[in-house]
C-alpha cells in the first residue's frame, strides 16, 4: 500500500536584482568588440553572493511568519570556501540557531536542483536561496551575457502554511561532457565549441521535460507557463524554438537574458519568480534548466498566490535598474581593473571574537530598546543613553524599519572600492539614530530629509575576511 505524501511546494518567494545595469554597448564602445544589445545586471562593489542572497530572502520572508528548518545556498561564486556561506545569510536573517545552514557550491545546476529537492520534501521547510555573480574576461561573451541576481524560495508541506504553488513532479537527466568549466580561483570560465553540447543539451532537455510533465499528470495540453533556463545560450534557444513549434508558443516565459543576463545558479529561480509574479491561480508552471544535464519541475499555482506575492516584484526591479554604470567602474568592481587606491591605510580585517559577540548587531541589525524609556540604541548598549538604566534592554530588529536622512557628507578621502563614500546620519521611524554608509546612491542627489532603507552589504574584504554589515540606500518604495 502506498500513502500519498502531503502536498508540498512553495510557501513564499522573493527575488533580488542589484541596482545597476551595464548597457552591453558600453563594452563595445570601450573595447571595439564584445558587448551587444540590451543590458545585464551588475552586483555593486559592495555586493556578493551572500549579500544578494540575504536581500532575496528578506523579500521572500517579509510577508510570512513561517520559519524554515533548513537554509541552503546555491552558487558558482561562493565568497568563502571552507567557511560555510549560508551561515552569513542565516545570521543576517536572524534565524534561530536550530536552523541548518548549508551550501551547494559549484555548477549553476545546483540552483534549480536544490529548489526541486526543497519543493518536493514534506519533511522539512527549506529556505532555498540561489545567488550568483557571473562575468568573464573583458570582451568575452560571458561578460556581456552574464547577469547577477538572487532568488529565494521558502518550500515545504502545506502543513506549515498555505502553498502558493504546489509541487506536481520533476525529472532529471545527467550526462558527463565537457561544455563549460573553471578551475577554482579563476575569474573566468572556459567553454568548448558551442555546437558540441547543443545537441546533447537539446535531447536531455526534451526528455526531462516530457518525463516531468508525465509525472505531474499533465497530458498533451502541456503547462500554462514554461521557463527555459540554463548556461548554454545556443541550446536554450534551440530548445525554446522546438518547444514553441510543438504547441507551447505563447506559453514560454520571456527570456530575462536580454535585460538581466544569464544568472547562473539564480537563473531558473529568478525566472520562476517572474512567472509567479504574474501567473493566475490554478495554472501550471514548468521550469526547465540546462546545466550539465537537464532538470525539470512542474508546479501548479494555488488561490493563495495572489495574496502571497512579494514586493518588489521582478518586473519592478527590472524597471528601477540604473543604467548609468560605466564600463570602467564595472571592470573595477569585478577586479579586472586594478585602480590606484587613495593614499590611506587598508581597512583592518574584522576580528573573529568581537564579530561573534556582536552577531545579532553586525549581521542581524538588531538594536536594543530601553524597556522603561523606549529609547532605541544602535548599536545596542547595556547602559541607556536616556536615564542610565543598566541591563534593562530588549532586542529591537531594525533592518526593515524606514529612516530619514538627518545630515550627510561625501567623503572623498576615505578608503573605498568605489569612491567617494557617501555617509549619512539617519533617524529611524519610531526612534533610533544611526550613522552609516549609503549605497546605490548618486552623491549629487542626496539631501537632508530623503527617505532610506537598510540593505545588507559587504563593506570591504581585508586579509580574506569579508566585512558584512548594513548600509542605507534610497528607499525603493
Amino acid at each position: 500500500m502506498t500513502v500519498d505524501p502531503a502536498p508540498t511546494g512553495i510557501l513564499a518567494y522573493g527575488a533580488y536584482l542589484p541596482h545597476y545595469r551595464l548597457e552591453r554597448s558600453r563594452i563595445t564602445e570601450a573595447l571595439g568588440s564584445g558587448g551587444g544589445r540590451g543590458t545585464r545586471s551588475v552586483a555593486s562593489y559592495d555586493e556578493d553572493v551572500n549579500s544578494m542572497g540575504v536581500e532575496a530572502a528578506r523579500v521572500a520572508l517579509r510577508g510570512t511568519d513561517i520559519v524554515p528548518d533548513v537554509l541552503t545556498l546555491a552558487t558558482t561564486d561562493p565568497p568563502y570556501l571552507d567557511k560555510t556561506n549560508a551561515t552569513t545569510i542565516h545570521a543576517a536573517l536572524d534565524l534561530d540557531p536550530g536552523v541548518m545552514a548549508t551550501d551547494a557550491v559549484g555548477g549553476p545546476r545546483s540552483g534549480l536542483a536544490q529548489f526541486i529537492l526543497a519543493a518536493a520534501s514534506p519533511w522539512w521547510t527549506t529556505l532555498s536561496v540561489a545567488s550568483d555573480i557571473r562575468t568573464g574576461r573583458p570582451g568575452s561573451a560571458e561578460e556581456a551575457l552574464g547577469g547577477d541576481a538572487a532568488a529565494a524560495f521558502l518550500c515545504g508541506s502545506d502543513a506549515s502554511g498555505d502553498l502558493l504553488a504546489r509541487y506536481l513532479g520533476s525529472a532529471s537527466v545527467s550526462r558527463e561532457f565537457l561544455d563549460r568549466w573553471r578551475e577554482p580561483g579563476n575569474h573566468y570560465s572556459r567553454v568548448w565549441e558551442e555546437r558540441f553540447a547543443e545537441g546533447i543539451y537539446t535531447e536531455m532537455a526534451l526528455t526531462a521535460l516530457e518525463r516531468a510533465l508525465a509525472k505531474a499528470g499533465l497530458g498533451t495540453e502541456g503547462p500554462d507557463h514554461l521557463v527555459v533556463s540554463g548556461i548554454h545560450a545556443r541550446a536554450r534557444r534551440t530548445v525554446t524554438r522546438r518547444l514553441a513549434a510543438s504547441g507551447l508558443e505563447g506559453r514560454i516565459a520571456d527570456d530575462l537574458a536580454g535585460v538581466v543576463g544569464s544568472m547562473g545558479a539564480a537563473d531558473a529561480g529568478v525566472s520562476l519568480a517572474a512567472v509567479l509574479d504574474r501567473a493566475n491561480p490554478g495554472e501550471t508552471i514548468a521550469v526547465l534548466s540546462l546545466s550539465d544535464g537537464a532538470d525539470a519541475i512542474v508546479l501548479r499555482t494555488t488561490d493563495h498566490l495572489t495574496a502571497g506575492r512579494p514586493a518588489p516584484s521582478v518586473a519592478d526591479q527590472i524597471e528601477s535598474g540604473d543604467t548609468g554604470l560605466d564600463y570602467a567602474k564595472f571592470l573595477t568592481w569585478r577586479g579586472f581593473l586594478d585602480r590606484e587606491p587613495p593614499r590611506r591605510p587598508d581597512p583592518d580585517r574584522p576580528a573573529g571574537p568581537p564579530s561573534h559577540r556582536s552577531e545579532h548587531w553586525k549581521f542581524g541589525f538588531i538594536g536594543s530598546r530601553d524597556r522603561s524609556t523606549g529609547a532605541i540604541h544602535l548599536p545596542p548598549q547595556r547602559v541607556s543613553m536616556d536615564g542610565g538604566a543598566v541591563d534593562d534592554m530588549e532586542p529591537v530588529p531594525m533592518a526593515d524599519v524606514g529612516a530619514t536622512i538627518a545630515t550627510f557628507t561625501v567623503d572623498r578621502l576615505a578608503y573605498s572600492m568605489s569612491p567617494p563614500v557617501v555617509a549619512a546620519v539617519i533617524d529611524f521611524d519610531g526612534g533610533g539614530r544611526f550613522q552609516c554608509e549609503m549605497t546605490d546612491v548618486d552623491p549629487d542627489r542626496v539631501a537632508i530629509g530623503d527617505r532610506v532603507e537598510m540593505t545588507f552589504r559587504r563593506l570591504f574584504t581585508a586579509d580574506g575576511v569579508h566585512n558584512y554589515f548594513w548600509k542605507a540606500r534610497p528607499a525603493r518604495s
Partner: protein
Amino acid sequence: MGSHGIKDQVAIVGMGCTRFGEHWDKGVDDLLIDAAHEAYASAGVEQDDIDAFWLGTMASGQSGLTLSRPLQLGYKPVSRLENYCATGSEAFRNACYAVASGAYDVAMAIGVEKLKDSGFSGLVGTRPPADGTEASLTAPASFSLLAPAYAKKYGVEESTMKEVLTRIAWKNHRNGALNPRAQFRKEVAKETIAGSPLVAGPLGVFDCSGVSDGSAAAIIVRAEDAHRYTDHPIYVKALAFTAGPAAGPIDSTYDYTTFREVVASAEDAYAQAGITDPMAEIAMAEVHDCFTPTELVLMEDLGFAPRGMAWKEALAGTFDLDGELPVNPDGGLKSFGHPIGASGLRMLFECWLQLRGEAPPERQIETDKSLGLTHNLGGAPGACVSFVSIVGANRG
C-alpha cells in the same frame, strides 16, 4: 562633590615649541629634545631640576620611555597620555594637578607627534580589534557634517556658508603667515581656498588643518615659586575636560550644530576662572580649528557669539587679529599645523608669548586684558573629548 579647579595655584615658567611642519630630517626623538631643551632654557632650569614628566602623544610612541630614552632622564617619573587630539592639553592638565597637589615641585608637560612618516593622507587611527561595524569616516568627513546642518538650521545660503568657511581659513592663514614656527607661512587668496579640491562634503583641502610633525613643552611650578624662574609667569586659572557619552551618532536629539562636550567644558572653565562675560574678559583664544566648520561652531559653544550668529561675526572680522577677540592669532591648526600630541601645548605657547608681550610685533595683540583661552578637542561631532583652559598674566 564638585569641580573646583586650581585657580592661581600653579604657573607656567618656561615653554618651548618646535617649528611645525614636514620634518623629514627629524624623528620623534629630535622633536622631543628640541622642545624640551627650549623649555629648559626658557625657564632657566637644568633637566635634572624637573621632578616629573607628562608626555602626550597619540601614536608616535608608547610609554614613558618614548621621552626618557631620548632625553636620557635620570630615573624620573614619566607618564604617557593619549586623549585623541586633546592629548597635549591632557598632558598639561595632569602635570598641573601633580604640582598643585604638592607631590612635585617642578613638572614638565610635553607633547609630540610625527605624522608625516606614515606616508598616508590625513590622520591614521589605531583601533583595537573590532567587529567591523564602526563607521569609518575620515576626520574631514566627520566634521563636514557640521556645515550643512548649521546652514539648514540657521537658514544660511550654501554660497554664504562657503564664504564663511573660506574666511575662517583665510584669517588663520593670514595669521600663520606672521608666524615663523607655522607650517604654512603664507597668506592664501580666498579664491584659492574656495576653489581647492573637495575632500569631504563642502570642505576643500584648504578647509583642513595641516598634517605635520612637531613638539611643544611647558614647565610648571607652584604659583608662589614662579617668580624664582621668571618675572612674567603665566598663571593657570582653569583646566576643564569633558568626555561625552558619544551620543551624537545614536541620539536623534543631537543636530550637528554644536559640541555638547565643548559647552560643558567651557562652562566648567569659566566657573573655575570666575569669568562671566568671555568676550569682555578674554584677550585672545586659541581654538581647535581642525576644520573650518569646527571653528565656526566653537565660537558659539565657547560663548563668543550667540547661537546662529557666529557666521555673521566671522564675516565681520570679529575674530581677526585686529578684531574684538583675536582667535588663533598664531595661525591655528589650520596654518600652524596639527601634530596631534603637541597641539594643545602649542596653543598655550601662543598664550605664553602674547600675554607676556613676546609675540613678534607684527602679530602682538594690543590689549589691556590679561586672560587667554585655549580650546582643544578630539573625536568627532557628537562623540568627542573637549578641553578648555584659561591662563592669565596676573595672579588673583
